[in-house]
Structures are given as C-alpha cells and as structure tokens.
C-alpha cells in the first residue's frame, strides 16, 4: 500500500513534467518558427532572431504601461510594427545577401550586428533591469487537470502559438503566395525564371518571420516571466535547437521540435536539475552530428 502511494506520487510528477513541457514547448515552437522560415526561403541565418522576440516583448510592455492591458492588442500592434519593419528592412539587406558569394555566413555575421544594435538600443531606452508585463491571465487561478494544477497563462500561450503556427501553415499550403514561397524554398533560381517575383515574396516571408518572433515576444511574459533587453541571445540559441530538432522549412516541424525541447527540458528539471539548461545544446549537437542530412536537409559540407 505504502509503495503504491509513492509510485503514484512519482507518476504524478512525471505526468506534470510532460504536460508542462508540452505547453512550454508549443510556445517555443512559435518562438522559433521565424528562424525556420528565413532560413528555408532565403538561406538567411537570423542570429538576431531572439532580439526580435525581445522587441515584441517590449512593444507589449510599452503598450501595457500605456494602459493597453490585453495581450490581444499587443499582438495586433506587433503585426503592424514588426511586419512593416520587416518589409522595409528586407530591401536594403535581402537582395544584397542572397546575391553574395556566401549568404549563410554573411547573414550570420550581419544579423549578429543587428542583434548588437537592438540590444544596445533596448538597454538605452529601457535600462538593464527586468520588467514585467502584468497580464490579467497571470493572476487567474490554475486550471485543474487530472488532479494537478496547470497555469492558465501557459495554456493561453500554447493555444495562441498553435493557432499562429497553423495560420502560417495555411498560408504556405493553401494560398497562391504560399505556393510561390514553397517554390522559392525548393529552388530560388528556377522559381525566378517561372515569373515569381522572388524579392516581393521574400520580403513578405522576412516580415512574417519577424512578426512570428514578435508575437512570441508578446506572449513571452506569460511563459518566461519578466523580460529584459539581453534576453535575445539565449532565445536565439534555443530557437536554433528547436528548428534543428524539428525539420527545416516545414512549420509543423517546428511543433515537433518545440515539443521535444520542452518535454526534455522539464524532465531534466525534474530528475537532474543541475544539468537542465544544457538540454538544448546537447539536443542540437546530437541531431546535427547524427542526422545531418535527415532532419536538416543540407547540413553536410560539400566543399
């Protein structure tokens, strides 16, 4: 009887870690979606990805301090601001990079510079201290599921993430622009010759990448609590892990990557807590080395 009760407790802990990991991971699936899109379509390695998430979070913060208390308005604001910024920013950067001798490596370095700029500007405007966005849902009582309490904020963030990812999936697979986008993913030059306006489509995808990052930023206070200007780099690395674990170019792959990341992180926190933050790095390296062609496509060096 005694051992049965102990096993019940251990099972509950395991179950909690898995469910929380799923909710957590779905948010990270959205968080890394834009990285996936940019690489898939333009071979751009957006090392500033996490910093765009940070920008989204601070847009929500500014809105919040000006009395806009609902996350929905924050989401709308981010679509307008980061969408516009992305579209405008693409034209001086994009064609130059994709036409260069090594777009992957040059974009990696360029976006590192962008990341430095965004971080520095955020520190100048908002200071170094963490700030909180006190969405109402953070104070709602936990939701009971099978006898254990889960945070409504995580459930909301995971739900919105799934909706956004499905919307992007719908765009890619059920609209004309989406077909064009996938054609560019397949072969840039060939799609150009079939009359697709590559740069216009690329600019839209670039904007979409920044918008999804920004949306994750608006949701981030729900999942990771306080926000701060230097939060970007860590998020970028996590996003790389998620993208590489999942599969490149397919937004549903991000969901898979996010789930694997979230669940393994929470299991590590539960059973081997001192090693937990090593999880994304180990997953990333293992997948890179063991399945370089499989999950990633063109991961192996040819020259």
């Amino acid at each position, binding site marked *: 009887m005694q051992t049965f009760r102990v096993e019940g407790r251990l099972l509950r802990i395991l179950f909690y870690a898995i469910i929380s990991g799923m909710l957590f991971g779905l948010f990270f699936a959205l968080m890394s979606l834009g990285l996936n899109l940019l690489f898939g379509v333009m071979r751009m390695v957006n090392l500033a990805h996490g910093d765009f998430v940070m920008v989204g979070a601070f847009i929500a913060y500014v809105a919040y301090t000006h009395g806009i208390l609902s996350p929905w308005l924050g989401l709308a604001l981010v679509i307008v601001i980061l969408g516009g910024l992305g579209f405008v920013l693409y034209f001086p950067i994009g064609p130059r990079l994709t036409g260069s001798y090594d777009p992957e490596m040059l974009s990696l370095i360029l976006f590192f510079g962008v990341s430095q700029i965004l971080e520095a500007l955020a520190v*100048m405007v908002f200071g170094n201290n963490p700030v909180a966005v006190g969405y109402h849902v953070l104070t709602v009582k936990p939701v009971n599921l099978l006898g254990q309490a889960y945070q409504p904020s995580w459930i909301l963030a995971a739900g919105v993430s799934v909706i956004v990812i499905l919307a992007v999936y719908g765009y890619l697979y059920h609209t004309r622009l989406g077909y064009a986008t996938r054609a560019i993913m397949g072969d840039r030059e060939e799609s150009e010759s079939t009359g697709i306006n590559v740069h216009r489509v690329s600019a839209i995808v670039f904007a979409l990448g920044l918008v999804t990052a920004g949306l994750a930023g608006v949701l981030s206070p729900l999942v990771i609590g306080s926000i701060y200007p230097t939060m970007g780099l860590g998020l970028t690395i996590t996003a790389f892990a998620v993208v590489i674990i999942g599969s490149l170019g397919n937004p549903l792959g991000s969901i898979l990557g996010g789930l694997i990341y979230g669940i393994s992180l929470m299991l590590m926190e539960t059973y081997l807590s001192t090693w937990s933050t090593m999880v994304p790095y180990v997953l990333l390296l293992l997948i*890179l*080395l063991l399945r370089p062609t499989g999950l990633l496509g063109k991961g192996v060096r040819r020259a």
Partner: protein
Amino acid sequence: MPKIARSLWMNGFIGVVLLVVFGVAPGFYANTSILFQMMMYIVLAQGVNVLYGFTGYLPFGYVGFFGAGAYGASLAIQMGHLPGSVAMGVGAMVSVVLGLVLLPLLRLAGAYFAIGSMAAAEIVYYVVSNPALDKVTNGPYGIQLVQSYHPVESYAFMVGALGLVTLGVMILRHSRIGMALLALREDSVSAAMIGINVVTARAGVWLASALVAGLAGAIFAWHTSVFYPTTVFDLNISVFAIVFTLFGGAGTVLGPTVGVVVLFGLYNVIGISSPQYFQLLFGVLIVTLVLFLPNGVVSLLRRRGWDVP
C-alpha cells in the same frame, strides 16, 4: 624582388614590430592588463583567422578551447603541482584533445558548423562548472592559483605566444598547403587533382587553431590566477575574436592585428564606461562591414593595388 619573398619580409616586419612594441610597452605604460589582453586577443584573432580565413569554418564556440586551456593549465598547477611554464603546454594540449574530440564538427557546413561549435562550447562549460565535478574543477567556485602567480613571467609568455602565432600564420600563408586551402575554400572537387588531402589539411588547421586558443587560455589563467568558469567560457570572447578578425580582414596576417588594435583599443576607451554605446557602434560597424566591405578594412588597401601581408 619576387612577390612571395617581399610578402614574407613584410610579415616578418609585422611580427618584429609586435614583439618589440609589446615587449617594451610595460616600461612606458603602466596598465599592463590592457596590453596583456590586447596580445591575448591578437593571438585568439589569429587562431580564428587561421580557421576561418583558410578553411571557411566560423567557430562561434572558439571560447571552448580557450576555457579548456585555462582549466587544463590550472589543474596541472593545482593537482599536478607543475610549474607555470610547463602547465602552459598542458593547457594547450588539453585544448588540442578537445579539438580531436570535436573533429566530427568539421562534417558540418557553414552556419551549422558555427552553431554546432557554439553548442559544443556551452556543453564543455556546463560540464566544467557543474557541481557534480566539484572535486576536480571546483565546479562553479572557479580557480585560485595563488601559488604560481607570476605576472611578469606570464606576460613574457604571452609575448612569446604572440610571436609564435604570428610566425605560424605567416608560414601557413606561404606554404603549399596554406595556399591550396585558400584557393580551395569552397571547392574541394579540384583539390584531389593537385594532390592535397583537403580533409586532413583542414583537420590540421582545426587542431592548430585549438592549440592557439588553448595556449591563450592557459596563459590567461596563469596571469589572472583567480577566475570563474563564466570568465573563461564567456561567449563574448569568441565574438570579440571573430569580429576583430573580420573587421581587419581574414586570410591575412595584418588584418586581425589591425582589427584588435583598433577595436579593442576603442573598447577600452568607450566600452567600459558606457558599454551600450560601444555595443551600438559595434553593431553598426558589423552591419556596414558585411554590406559594403565583406573582406575587412585591409581590403581597402588591396583595392589600391597594395599587397597586403
């Protein structure tokens, strides 16, 4: 004068100037810590230069070797009771061993390699700093090397390392293998035709750059004598070394040196008192560089028809 001979002569000149400047400077300039770090970054930047300039691998996790060297040397002093000078060699060798372990990374291309190497460096950091390794590495508590503290000797070692590394890059640049690597950065197909085993040559360059970073880390540990794992595995060390190299121009001897002297000098003028302004400037510089000057500032000289060493 034949072109190669003149270029060699120029390189030797740079090396001698560096050695004299950093050897004599402490007599005139009291802040040896800045001089020491400047040399350290030139050494690291040359390590990045060798790897990126000659093989196209951009090592975001380069700091992993630096940290491995620092810890290797420190443990040799603490547990092996070796004198500082010998421990430097141990540190460099530990880093080479790490390089051997990480050889499979070379299978990865471009961005994958950059990200993969960063993940590897973070893993090394988490292992070294984990409380489970308290008994060996002292975990998060870091290293104290009071018994071997010797600022003058360790400074002299860094001057030596600087000379050796500059000489090494010079030789590599004018060797058959170096030139072949440069010519074949992106095209290994024709490599076999001229009888160079590109894979082996690249592995060799990788291990050499690991050795360089390990040596720099070891001498840093000796010179600083008190540090935490976060100090020697700070990703900024990789980032600085890479940006300095790219700023100056990879694939040359002069480029990384110029990059360090200018940017690290700038960092010490404004980066310490108002880091966010320096970071902004840093970011703008990088973006401008990639868009308008992807081969570094020394390429400006080359455009004027000068032969850059």
